[in-house]
């Protein structure tokens, strides 16, 4: 396959995943801001949405201050935000369009449909319309995922799409956890207190994992168990360990199809091996934040290795 085709597929996967993640972040922020707490809790919720999206730099540079309106606008539609939901869907569609021939009709229709829908819905400012918009984005991601899994041949086109998706998903989950750890609790609020509890719970909701949590742990929501679910639990499709498993298997499929392994495969396998030995107690002991930062750095390095090996 053309390197450019692989590159476009990989990024289409990443952008669609990211659009979904942003919708979830915004949904969580709306929920957190509605909690019965002091005023600054609401502001903190919106500020944390910006931070967990990894666009705080751009947001600040645009001279914006966190509020419901500014954050909603910036993350969903912001013309000055190159990775807003709108920008992500548009880029995913541009990527898909330039490799139209590598996609099934169904997958192209799902992605093109997302883009058409974006233009039809416009930029709703009312809260209920905005929530509907977020629903639209999430269902779009489901449609794209479904079309991918149900119609694509299991060949390199599929593996590159999936690879982009898995790398982005790992990145997003890591950022999400880090924000809770670092930012969310306003000064004066007690760790383990009511707000803290709601925040962890919301975080689970954000990744559609609240019910899963109950099934797995049969406990009330506790920070280290949430972290365990999102970091190490292999049953949880968004956990870092799960994503890493997917990344390794997609890279291995590519290596098998092409009859050649390379640095990307070696890097990915080494990291998966470390996940298999990791224990949540150790991670908390040495610092969750440090652990996550290290993961994000490695994820970048892995992305660069994939780029070097296949996409140029």
């Amino acid at each position, binding site marked *: *396959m*053309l390197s*450019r085709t692989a590159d476009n597929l990989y990024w289409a996967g990443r952008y669609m995943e990211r659009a979904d993640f942003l919708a979830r972040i915004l949904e969580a922020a709306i929920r957190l801001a509605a909690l019965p707490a002091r005023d600054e809790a609401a502001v903190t919720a919106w500020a944390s949405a910006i931070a967990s999206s990894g666009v705080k730099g751009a947001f600040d540079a645009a001279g914006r201050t966190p509020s419901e309106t500014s954050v909603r606008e910036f993350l969903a539609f912001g013309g000055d935000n190159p990775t807003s939901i709108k920008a992500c869907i548009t880029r995913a569609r541009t990527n898909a*369009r330039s490799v139209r021939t590598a996609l099934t009709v169904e997958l*192209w229709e799902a992605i093109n449909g997302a883009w058409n829908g974006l233009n039809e819905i416009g930029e709703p400012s009312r809260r209920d319309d905005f929530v509907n918009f977020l629903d639209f984005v999430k269902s779009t991601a489901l449609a794209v995922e479904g079309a991918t899994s149900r119609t694509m041949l299991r060949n390199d086109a599929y593996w590159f799409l999936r690879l982009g998706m898995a790398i982005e998903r790992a990145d997003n989950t890591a950022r999400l956890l880090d924000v809770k750890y670092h930012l969310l609790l306003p000064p004066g609020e007690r760790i383990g207190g009511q707000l803290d509890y709601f925040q962890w719970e919301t975080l689970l909701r954000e990744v559609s994992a609240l019910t899963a949590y109950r099934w797995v742990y049969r406990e009330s929501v506790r920070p280290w168990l949430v972290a365990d679910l999102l970091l190490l639990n292999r049953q949880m499709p968004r956990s870092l360990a799960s994503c890493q498993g997917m990344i390794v298997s997609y890279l291995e499929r590519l290596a098998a199809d092409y009859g*050649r392994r390379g640095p990307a495969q070696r890097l990915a396998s080494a990291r998966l091996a470390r996940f298999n030995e990791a224990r949540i107690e150790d991670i908390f002991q040495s610092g969750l934040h440090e652990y996550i930062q290290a993961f994000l750095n490695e994820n970048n390095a892995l992305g660069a290795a994939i780029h070097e090996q296949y996409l140029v």
Partner: protein
Amino acid sequence: MTKAFDEMTGGGSQEVRDSYRALGAWLEQAPPDLLRARSRQAELFFRRMGVTFAVHGDAESNERLIPFDVVPRIIDAAEWALLEKGLKQRVTALNAFLRDIYGPQECLRAGVVPTDLILTNPQYRPEIQGRRPPGDVWCHIAGIDLVRTGEDGFYVLEDNVRTPSGVSYMLENREMMMRLFPDLFAEYRVRPVDAYTDSLLRSLQASAPATAGADPTIVVLTPGPFNSAYYEHSFLADKLGVELIQGGDLFVNDDTVFMRTTEGPKRVDVIYRRIDDDFLDPLTFRPDSTVGVPGLMAAYHAGRVTLANAVGTGVADDKAVYTYMPEIIRFFTGEEALLKNVPTWRCREPEALKAVLGQLDQLVVKEVGGSGGYGMLVGPAATKSEIEDFRARLIADPDDFIAQPTLSLSTAPTLDGGGLAARHVDLRPFVLTSPAGTRVTPGGLTRVALKPGSLVVNSSQGGGTKDTWVLND
């Protein structure tokens, strides 16, 4: 203007022509709502599929649908047999002409075409002089625009032998019609068009250079997603089952063309290029081209890659050269042209210029290098000041223009708001040539001017398309 010949009812009378009898009856009893519903259905489908084109200089609405008309245009077997023969003859002559222009130039020495018209033509490529493409085929894909003025009056309006577009609409329109009106296909024996992509693939394979193996690697080269015909490029690559590539995907090493793949470099043998000569290779042509491939011409000259169409074919679809086609056909085939040219004044000839200037308000004046309906004057529809502007341009640069009488193009029934109305149409059949022979796909792209009375069918000017049915005997 006199009343135009109508494809369904002929000249003026209300008698439906034989080939249209079943369709006419069907249209008569079909509820108007049905046609409109089918039309909306088609539009939704085209939008969902992203069957779009981009408009030059129209950044706002970057992608548009070409309006699709659900009433087919019908050509009977006898009419088509004549057209097919004429098209083959014409494209054969065009290929012989190109071979000669870049070779011995006998037609210039014999005075068939003025030497300066060719050698100073902006589309003439001196780099190609004395060279021959693999298989000696120059124009692999031609789109010849035809118009009709009467029962027996088909004329060639222009020859497109560079990178003619529209074939994806011919194929998509047929798909759409078979989906929307299966009943009509049961009633009519319509010759299929979907063998086109298969023929194209075989044509391209047969045109591969000698250095290619038994299974040559073919690609479609596009300027990219912002090109107006990008949809068509991706559609064709998809149907051919070959890679759709951009310049950056290719590189040249040791006079051989390679594409960059996830498994390393892969040799490319045949490039169906949808990029103009000027942009193909920044080392040979425009140095500022970012869509081309540095070194491509070296590989081409070394005979290691086929470009379809060959470099330099533009000289044959120039509108001034067009006027010499009857002589060109006679010279190279020894036969009279089966398809007529539209009578044309060459403004480079002083007598003709005088005649043209005297009746500008009745003529269509075209730039010899123009295309897409741009830069032309339609006299009867122009304002006084537009005519005066053109007069000044003509006097300043007569070589740049030809003029033709305003033809009364045939009309075909077309769905318009309330119901059916007569709208002017033309026809672009597609002709494929390889060392193995010349083939014409039955039918082609019928373009229709959607504005009442308008003669301009170009999609960039708001024209639409219809399916074209060639009937079996």
